[in-house]
């Protein structure tokens, strides 16, 4: 009797599970290839999942996602995680080949090669070239060719660029005026200026930039380029021990150690933004993306100016990168994700993001009346825009050796600079150690090609 009862419960569970399985099958069957005219409402009533970094880009998409739902009828769930956690989540999902997420943010200058080789990017060209799936107003050619090319690997479009950004020098012009210091025109002048500030304003932080190992190459690379150094030499090996690179390490470490805030070794953008927003730092070298947050209170619009990092002995080569939106190859709703991607990178949306302090990769946005009028409202916005123009016209996306295992090299570079900042090693010792470790990764990456 008892056996029968148990058997009955098991059978009942199986019967109950069948509709769930059937629903999944039905959903998968609903992904037929699109044909006919483009229609924003084609996928009305369906859902997508977007995995995003909790930076201003991800936050702004969350803010405006209701507009996408209104336009298309597609519900979008945005999972926002801090940068490292979002990458970890992405890796777990991709490794499991799960269809859990449909699209995600990717920093192609950092991980493009690795993700591409691992097969984590869906080629977007087939959808872009399908007139049934791409809005006639989309105007992909409006996105700068150079920026798009950075997202193309072996003829495959791995994502659509969503912004341009890079480190820019925010400085308190009121303090400089008070002390009779002119905005620096070279790295030497920058160091001289922070020295004067330190002597005259002991309660303020003369200079601040990233110190956290994995994050530091974003700002350090600009110093390296401007001092005439490079990450890889002509022999294909790590080149942190060249005189130019050593000079860059010493200068960056000196500025951080002697003129930076206490605990700068753990600083990344959240701490720098806090320091910048409350007006404590006189020179703050950090992301252009943080512009909106820094200016939010209105206080800094009156006393802050912005410029690209001044040139050094090697000239001026700022850092410029951009986040892109990519579609998971394991997604069963790729066409819906493509709809979101089009909306997110459309002219209308890019103007909105621009007005929130996110520099757009679309040429037309820079030329739009609305954006021009917004920039003209405050001189600091104009300076921010001019600095970004310098970045996009003369910048480099080389923040580490351009190899598959680049993420690990970034931490090694950051640790080398950090150990000099902390006076734990001389620049030669730190660079030599970093060169050895990076050369191993260069060899490993070559073997993976």
């Amino acid at each position: 009797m008892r056996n029968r009862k148990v058997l009955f419960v098991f059978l009942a569970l199986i019967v109950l599970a069948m509709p769930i399985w059937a629903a999944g099958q039905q959903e998968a069957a609903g992904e037929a290839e699109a044909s006919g005219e483009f229609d924003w409402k084609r996928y009305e009533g369906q859902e997508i999942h977007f995995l995003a970094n909790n930076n201003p880009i991800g936050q702004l998409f969350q803010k405006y996602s209701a507009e996408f739902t209104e336009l298309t009828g597609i519900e979008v769930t945005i999972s926002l995680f801090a940068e490292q956690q979002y990458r970890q989540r992405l890796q777990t999902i991709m490794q499991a080949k799960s269809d859990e997420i449909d699209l995600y943010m990717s920093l192609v200058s950092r991980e493009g090669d690795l993700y591409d080789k691992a097969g984590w990017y869906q080629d977007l060209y087939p959808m872009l070239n399908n007139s049934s799936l791409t809005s006639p107003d989309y105007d992909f050619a409006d996105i700068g060719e150079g920026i798009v090319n950075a997202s193309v690997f072996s003829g495959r479009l791995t994502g659509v660029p969503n912004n341009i950004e890079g480190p820019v020098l925010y400085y308190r012009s009121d303090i400089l005026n008070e002390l009779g210091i002119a905005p620096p025109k070279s790295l030497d002048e920058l160091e001289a200026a922070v020295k004067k500030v330190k002597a005259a304003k002991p309660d303020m932080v003369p200079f601040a930039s990233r110190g956290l190992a994995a994050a530091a190459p974003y700002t350090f690379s600009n110093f390296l380029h401007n001092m005439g150094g490079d990450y890889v030499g002509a022999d294909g090996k790590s080149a942190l021990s060249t005189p130019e690179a050593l000079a860059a390490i010493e200068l960056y470490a000196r500025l951080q150690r002697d003129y930076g805030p206490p605990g700068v070794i753990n600083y990344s953008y959240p701490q720098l933004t806090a320091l910048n927003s409350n007006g404590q730092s006189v020179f703050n070298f950090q992301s252009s993306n943080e512009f909106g947050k820094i200016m939010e209170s209105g206080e800094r619009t009156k006393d802050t100016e912005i410029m690209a990092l001044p040139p050094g002995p090697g000239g001026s080569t700022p850092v410029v990168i951009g986040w892109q939106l990519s579609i998971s190859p394991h997604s069963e709703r790729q066409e819906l994700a493509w709809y979101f991607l089009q909306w997110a990178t459309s002219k209308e949306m890019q103007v909105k993001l621009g007005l929130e302090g996110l520099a757009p990769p679309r040429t037309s946005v820079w030329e739009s009346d609305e954006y021009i009028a917004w920039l003209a409202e405050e001189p600091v916005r104009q300076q921010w825009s001019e600095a970004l123009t310098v970045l996009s016209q003369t910048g480099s996306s080389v923040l580490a050796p351009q190899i598959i295992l680049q993420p690990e090299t970034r931490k090694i570079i950051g640790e080398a600079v950090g150990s000099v900042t902390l006076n734990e090693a001389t620049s030669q010792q730190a660079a030599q150690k970093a060169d050895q470790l990076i050369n191993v990764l260069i060899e490993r990456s070559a073997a993976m090609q």
Partner: protein
Amino acid sequence: MKQKERIPFLLLIGPAAVFTVLMTALPFVQVINMSLKDFIIGFQGVYIGLENYAVMLKDPVFWNGLRVTFELYFLSLFSQLLIGLYIAVLLHRKLKGSRFLRTILLSPFTMPPVAVGMMWLILLDPSFGPANYFLELIGLEKSLFLASPSLVIRTLAAIDTWQFTPFVVLILLGGLQTLPEEPYEAAEIDGATRRQRFFYITLPLLRPSIITATILRSIDLLRFFDTIYITTQGGPGTASTTLNIYAYNTGFVYFRMGYASALMITLMAVVLITVVFFNFLRKRQY
């Protein structure tokens, strides 16, 4: 067991057994398998035998990780047992307001480590945190706390001690409440002082509870992760990179899952040996 009862018994036990095999044994076997491969996430792994372990033995970051792990372990464990025992003895005395005090003292233990990490990160921030403000108020010098390579381990140990001493207190207090009255009565008649009673009666009788607390804290401390991850991510440099943090970075940040698996297997062996050692101590009769 009767034949009639065997089938329902197997049906009831079966799902739990299958679940255990699927969720514990299989992943463990998979980690061992991965540790024998040169495996980078997204790429095909290649079997390399024990090479990952051989590389580990020559890897200075591994040895640094092992040193940091044990430094943090001993410092935290010692502080937690010492302070935990002191508080437990205090709370065991039925003083006025001790119930209220007990609730307050035990509250850090109920907080999630991530929230604790965030809280201390803000409190100890060298530029914005109130900790330095109070240090200056009482005439002491400002400190870098988590940003100083020489202070970071002590600061992390202090945070963990703040949070998990109440856990030790709970175990020891439970132990104290089960101690028999007779030895104390006999000692009192013999004229033993309070100190003598503590060292010659309380401590020996409390030994099983102390070892239980030690085992439980050892398992957690050797795998110390959340607070470090939130506050320093292993920095400055590698000053707080424990084995667990190193394995996490290697696997999830740098994609080298084969080597990360070898690191995790090694860490697991370290935890296991420690637990077995303390278990042996617990069972040993004096």
